[in-house]
């Protein structure tokens, strides 16, 4: 059964208040049921797009890569074995596609992180980090300027590190799911998360200096 994780990210696909059996939708889609295909797309399109955008950093590319992932996944439904969930399988296609895209477009470097931020955003970020109170993610509402800085900070990470951080902290995947999605060892997931977060910390602290 798919727990609708969008609630955590405030993403609510159309008509997704009902918990739906993924396997049932997949079987119906495999039989050519357009309604099930539509439901699968509506169920996951925002999550896939959100993660892909955080990894590739460009809205147009993210839209294109999201479509690619769905087309490939739905075309390959007949080859899909139910060893893993459709969700993991779809994300595996989407993230690996995006990482390939990032590798091919290495030359398209993101702009320098501190080129566009005014003192206001930096001050807000410094206040947030200096606050001794333990942060509650559910209650945090960061300002737009801080969000842009964090976005840019993520973009400075290595694509492989960025992917695991996004899958963990944004998509809320478990380490095991990340390992399955990226087809890597669990130990690799742990080290990449640790290194990714450390790199992000260094990058953001450099912005504040």
């Amino acid at each position, binding site marked *: 059964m798919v727990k609708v994780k969008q609630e955590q990210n405030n993403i609510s696909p159309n008509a997704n208040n009902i918990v739906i059996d993924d396997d049932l939708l997949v079987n119906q889609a495999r039989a050519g049921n357009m309604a099930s295909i539509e439901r699968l797309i509506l169920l996951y399109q925002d999550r*896939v797009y*959100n993660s892909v955008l955080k990894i590739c950093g460009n809205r147009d590319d993210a839209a294109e890569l999201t*479509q690619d992932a769905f087309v490939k996944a739905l075309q390959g439904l007949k080859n899909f074995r139910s060893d893993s969930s459709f969700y993991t399988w779809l994300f595996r296609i989407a993230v690996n596609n995006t990482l390939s895209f990032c590798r091919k477009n290495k030359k398209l470097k993101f702009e320098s992180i501190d080129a566009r931020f005014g003192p206001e955003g930096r001050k807000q970020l410094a206040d947030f*980090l200096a606050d001794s109170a333990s942060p509650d993610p559910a209650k945090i509402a960061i300002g737009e300027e801080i969000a842009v800085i964090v976005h840019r900070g993520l973009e400075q990470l290595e694509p492989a590190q960025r992917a695991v951080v996004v899958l963990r902290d944004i998509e809320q995947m478990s380490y095991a799911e990340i390992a399955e999605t990226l087809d890597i060892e669990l130990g690799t997931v742990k080290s990449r998360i640790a290194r990714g977060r450390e790199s992000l910390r260094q990058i953001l602290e450099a912005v504040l200096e």
Partner: protein
Amino acid sequence: MKEFDKTEELLNSYLDGELDERRSTEAKRLIDHDEDVRAKYETLEKYKSLVEALPCDKAPGNTFEEITHRLEREVLWDNSPESSYKAGRRHLFLRRLVTTAAVLFLAAGLFVIIFDVFVPESTRKQFVANFGRERQSQVLYERPFADAKMEPTVVEDVRVEPENSPIVPLSAKLVFKTSAPIQVDMFVGKAIMNRQLFAKTTAVVRKSSSIYYELECDKSDLISLIDDLAILWKKCQDVQMSVETEIFDNYVTIDRISASDVLEICQVQNYNQRMRMAEDISKINAVSPAAMVIEKLYAGGTDIDLNMFELPKPVLTEPEDVQAKTIEDPAKLTIIVQR
């Protein structure tokens, strides 16, 4: 692995709730008792919450439509990897087929070129004529009823078509053997000039006992020239004609040839007929001296008709239009005046 990395991983795993109970207790104890670790953990917590708090971006409104359109296109164009594989195989097969056809075509072309260059024309024509014709096996058997009367077979007249022969332009030598070579030479030169054939005379060679004129001209000019030279026969002891065969430097030689025979041979278009006529006249002329001897024996008042010893000349039975064709044919004639 460095101790630092181990602690980092432990703290991150603890933060993400990925540790079992024992490791979780261990991490908690570490955080509670070590100031640096606790500070590190709190920093990690802050940065994690920063990323988690990033606003979620929704897919563009047309995502669903775009995906379904692309799926429809893929189905319509049948662009799936499986069908692409089949299409690829079909394409490969077609390419191989075309390549094979091209190779065969080139080989056939090469064969035709080699055949055309190295095989004589007559052999080629014979080969082409016999190509595809089935050989009928000859059955030999004894007639079962030897005395039985066979019905007479009516043989109908069949029009004999001129056989195919290679197109070989006339090439001949005409030798005037005379005791007055200077006069004959002057006459030949004048005739050539009068017929405006001097420009077509490729060589004039004067030796001590003979003069050569080599002409390459139309057959019509040649016939006109020979017609002009007919008067020379009276000045010559003998006139010899050599007609070149298909084989290089191989001639059929005719002794004591008359001007009219020369003209007839020159007018024949068909190579086989020309050669057959030349051979026939050559044989007849070889027999003629014997007839002359007999003529002398019976010269004294006998009633023998001497014309009976004159062998009939071969007559051309070619269709009428052949002569017309000969007019434009190229011809080569070497006139030799000999003492």
